[in-house]
């Protein structure tokens, strides 16, 4: 009534402004006086949901109102919003079905019901509703898209139904769209873009590419919204699918001869198809050369036309049409002289360099002539200099002595400092022109580090700090340049310094889809350094992004339907799976649960248990993983990644990560099963079998992982030890392998124990003894590692310089102890009532390891506080972060270690 509306008006305003807390207070007052005001109840549910408070209550409040929605439009609007935000799509469908049943002639309600079906992906109902809408409301209004909605729905059904898709739904969709086109043509109406786009989608799905081209030809003004260059691209794409080389070539020749805009795709097709046709046509190569030369002669300022000639030369070498790179060299020389002053020069010639990398100086000018006289620094001069050194870095991969590397680094640093004056007028938010020179200088220094890695560890660490200092200074001039920030994060992470890494990461403002590529730098190591809570925050924000993304995709598929953007519906539909299969998403989910286990070691809650179980049993999620990282964002200018090609780095890191993920999954899975076994009173042979399967899967994953690691060791040994390589390095892999063995044995114990428990059989003592013997060996091995390796000083005695690699190993060992302790704790809970001897031995070993580590932690903490950081860096804010990082890391690990020790002691008695 009017009175309620007046009272609710300010509340609506509060909700619109996002003041949900205040709105909730007002609503409580209103509902206290008049508890039956449906609008107020709906608004309250919305506020509770948005505030993430009492979410279950909010959902049930909305459900209770569904029947009232029929009577009140405002309530309907509110409920509809609530159900969409709560992702209660089935309820939304039910709601609109009820409403449509009452008002079958209401166009708005019927189309809302169609969209509700879109959200639940109920294609059959989508089609029915769309046809109903078309029948009732499209008479005399041919502009309404309802019939096309029906076609698109059938097409989506065809796409998703692997059984009847091709045989049943696709022909139906084709028939429907053909009818629609025919009707438009007969009625003299303009054929719409959306109609044609749907027809193309049908034909593409049928793989009738020639028909797609015919459709293009038939409708001259086809896709009138699109510009010429995009239309041409589409025609060429279809022809490429048909492998019609001759037609592509001739078409490209026509395109380049017309005065219209030419894009690189056309040139690329011209060159590629010239190469293919060359086998049967000798004249095609010279005539293509002439075409390209003519284009360049007419546009001598164009870097692209010049590059087109180089690309043709390169393709001839790739396909062995030519043997000698002499002509390519000449072309590159010309290219450098004319376009060496462009910042993108290197990106153009990179693919050609492998043919001339033995003689880069044959096409670059003399190094000495590049050194600009003082006070005449120009942007063009800078880029020419940069181009020179970029090529040099690419070509001169091996064989330089440390002295030469240092000399090169110094020289580049000198140039960088000189060219900084070009950027004096720039704001600190803008990138400097000459940052690349600094990066190259840093990379040469790190090459020295890698060369000395095995022999001069102590002095070497100063090189890392030197690099950090250089980058920190550059950062103070240009605060947000990702070229500086990313290497800095990597170096800090290498040193185990999570505080500065996190701070810089914040500066990068990583959010949304950027997580896919960038969060990898931190998430892969953060928890290893003991920064469990920070790691958890990162995991939570990654998961939030994914959840919101999938939700919003549904809403924009609805929008695309409304706009007739059918190709985009297809794209978004596929992308939903792409997002769901993201490696980053699954990894962050698993990491999150593992850390939850760490943090709740004493008591695993039911919710956590259920969450882990749900994730782990979903085989599809682990088998259909997709890698969406743009790895080159992280490995730019790294000498090793240049040499072994970006896609190899991408592939190898992904393969390794995937295997670790599987191992982690199996470990968690076995814990879950063991806990389940503890909690289940009745015998459950299924659990025992599940454990057996887990063990087999675990071993398979370990084997795979070993294989990847050994492949890496052969091909990527340099990469592995590079401080810029955001990955587990050699010694860490060794530790992890040892741990795998331990886990594997512990699983064996689980299996034996559960068998005996559930089948009432006695355990074969011999069998058990032999397993325990192996466990003992591994534990002794771990103790040895502590004594021989980690018990070395973490810090150097004379000046307190910290050895980061050793810290990392130590942190990993902590992780191992956590898992093994947990395993033994679980076993002791329900087995070995009679003979605890073997287990006691294990516990005793672990306790030794644990106490040794405790002593180490305390000693290291003291030395970290006591040592002088002057030796590290001249940047005072960095010094503070170093202390904070190491202290925090050790503090978190210490508190965790105390828990473990307590457990171990209780077990030992």
């Amino acid at each position, binding site marked *: 009534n009017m009175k309620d509306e007046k009272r609710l008006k300010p509340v609506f305003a509060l909700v619109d402004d996002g003041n949900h807390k205040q709105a909730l207070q007002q609503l409580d007052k209103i509902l206290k006086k008049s508890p039956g005001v449906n609008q107020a109840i709906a608004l309250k549910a919305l506020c509770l949901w948005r505030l993430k408070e009492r979410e279950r209550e909010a959902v049930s409040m909305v459900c209770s109102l569904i029947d009232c929605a029929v009577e009140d439009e405002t309530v309907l609007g509110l409920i509809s919003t609530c159900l969409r935000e709560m992702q209660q799509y089935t309820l939304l469908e039910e709601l609109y079905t009820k409403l449509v049943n009452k008002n079958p002639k209401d166009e708005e309600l019927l189309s809302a019901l169609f969209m509700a079906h879109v959200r639940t992906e109920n294609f059959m109902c989508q089609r029915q509703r769309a046809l109903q809408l078309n029948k009732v409301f499209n008479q005399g209004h041919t502009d309404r898209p309802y019939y096309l909605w029906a076609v698109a729905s059938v097409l989506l059904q065809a796409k998703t139904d692997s059984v009847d898709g091709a045989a049943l739904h696709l022909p139906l969709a084709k028939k429907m769209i053909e009818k629609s086109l025919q009707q438009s043509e007969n009625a003299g109406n303009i054929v719409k873009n959306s109609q044609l786009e749907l027809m193309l989608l049908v034909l593409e799905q049928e793989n009738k590419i020639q028909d797609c081209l015919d459709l293009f030809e038939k409708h001259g003004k086809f896709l009138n919204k699109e*510009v010429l260059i995009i239309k041409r*691209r589409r025609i060429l794409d279809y022809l490429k699918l048909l492998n019609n080389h001759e037609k592509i070539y001739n078409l490209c020749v026509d395109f380049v001869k017309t005065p219209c805009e*030419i894009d690189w795709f056309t040139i690329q097709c011209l060159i590629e198809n010239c190469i293919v046709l060359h086998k049967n046509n000798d004249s095609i190569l010279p005539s293509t050369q002439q075409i390209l030369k003519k284009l360049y002669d007419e546009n001598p300022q164009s870097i692209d036309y010049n590059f087109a000639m180089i690309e043709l030369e390169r393709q001839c070498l790739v396909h062995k049409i030519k043997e000698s790179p002499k002509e390519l060299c000449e072309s590159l020389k010309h290219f450098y002289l004319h376009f060496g002053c462009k910042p993108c020069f290197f990106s*153009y010639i990179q693919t050609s360099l492998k043919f001339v990398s033995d003689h880069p100086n044959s096409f670059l000018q003399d190094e000495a002539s590049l050194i600009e006289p003082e006070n005449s620094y120009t942007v063009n001069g800078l880029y020419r200099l940069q181009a020179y050194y970029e090529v040099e870095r690419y070509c001169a991969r091996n064989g330089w002595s440390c002295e030469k590397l240092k000399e090169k680094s110094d020289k580049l640093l000198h140039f960088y400092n000189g060219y900084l004056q070009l950027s004096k007028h720039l704001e600190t938010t803008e990138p400097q022109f000459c940052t690349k020179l600094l990066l190259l200088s840093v990379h040469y220094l790190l090459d020295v580090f890698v060369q000395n890695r095995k022999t001069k560890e102590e002095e070497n660490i100063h090189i890392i700090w030197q690099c950090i200092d250089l980058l920190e200074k550059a950062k103070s001039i240009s605060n947000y340049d990702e070229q500086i920030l990313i290497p800095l994060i990597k170096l800090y992470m290498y040193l185990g310094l999570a505080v500065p890494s996190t701070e810089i990461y914040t500066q990068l*403002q990583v959010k949304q*889809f*950027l997580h896919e590529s*960038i969060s990898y730098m931190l998430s892969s190591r953060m928890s290893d350094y003991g920064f469990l809570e920070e790691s958890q925050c990162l995991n939570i924000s990654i998961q939030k992004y994914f959840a*919101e993304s999938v939700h919003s995709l549904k809403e924009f598929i609805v929008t695309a339907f409304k706009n007739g953007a059918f190709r985009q519906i297809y794209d978004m539909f596929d992308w939903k799976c792409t997002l769901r299969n993201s490696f980053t998403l699954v990894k962050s989910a698993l990491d999150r649960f593992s850390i939850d286990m760490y943090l709740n070691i004493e008591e695993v809650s039911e919710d956590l248990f259920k969450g882990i179980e749900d994730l782990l049993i979903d085989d599809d999620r682990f088998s259909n993983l997709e890698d969406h990282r743009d790895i080159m*964002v992280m490995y730019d200018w790294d000498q090793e990644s240049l040499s072994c090609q970006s896609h190899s780095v991408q592939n190898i890191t992904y393969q390794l990560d995937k295997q670790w993920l599987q191992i982690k999954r199996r470990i968690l899975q076995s814990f879950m099963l063991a806990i389940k076994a503890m909690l289940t009173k009745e015998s459950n042979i299924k659990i025992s079998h599940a454990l057996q399967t887990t063990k087999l899967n675990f071993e398979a994953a370990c084997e795979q992982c070993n294989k990847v690691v050994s492949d890496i060791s052969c091909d990527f040994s340099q990469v592995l030890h590079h401080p810029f390589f955001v990955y587990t390095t050699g010694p860490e892999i060794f530790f992890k392998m040892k741990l795998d063995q331990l886990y594997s044995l512990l699983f064996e114990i689980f299996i034996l124990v559960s068998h005996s428990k559930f089948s009432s059989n006695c355990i074969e003592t011999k069998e058990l003894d032999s397993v325990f013997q192996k466990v003992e060996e591994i534990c002794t091995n771990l103790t040895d590692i502590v004594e021989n390796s980690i018990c070395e000083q973490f810090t150097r005695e004379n000046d307190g310089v910290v050895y980061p690699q050793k810290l990392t190993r130590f942190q990993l060992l902590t992780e191992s102890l956590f898992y093994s302790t947990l395993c033994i704790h679980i076993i002791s809970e329900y087995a070995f009532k009679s003979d605890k001897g073997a287990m006691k031995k294990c516990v005793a070993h672990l306790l030794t390891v644990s106490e040794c580590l405790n002593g180490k932690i305390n000693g290291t903490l003291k030395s970290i506080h006591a040592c002088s950081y002057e030796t590290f860096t001249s940047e005072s804010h960095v010094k503070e972060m170093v202390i904070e990082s190491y202290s925090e890391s050790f503090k978190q690990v210490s508190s965790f270690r105390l828990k473990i020790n307590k457990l171990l002691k209780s077990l030992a008695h």
Partner: protein
Amino acid sequence: MTTLRQFTCDDLFRITRMNLDPLTETYGLPFYLQYLAHWPEYFLVAESHTGDMMGYIMGKAEGNAARETWHGHVTCVTIAPEFRRRGVAGKLMSILEEVSERKACFFVDLFVRVSNQVAVDMYERLGYIVYRRVLDYYNGETDEDAFDMRKAMSRDKEMKSVIPLDRPVTSSEVE
């Protein structure tokens, strides 16, 4: 010279480097999806010869034809640092203008930070004029004014849309 094509969802994973640039805003995913679902023809990418992303443009058509405010709008145009100074932005802008011509727009407009002189100069070279100054258009640590820049399309024969206003306006006055 570039390869131009329409933006697809997967491209979101490939624009990381460009979006790490502090002057390029990374919006929430719904923002990009909204443009893909509404104005796919205005959402384009430029690729280099190696398939690397050189830049992208995002735009839309809005306004009212009867009031002669129907226009193309440039929401965002960004180019990767190494591909700057090569006319890629100009190319993307010209495609957006061509789409706007086909949609019979009266003009194309865009907003730019008044401090971003490099961008203002570029737009002027492309034929845009400062139509008006919008006070405190950009919010952040310190608010900043924007220039609303415009270029008339062929439908606006009398070039009425590009007669500069003689006073600045506030954000709330901008449609």
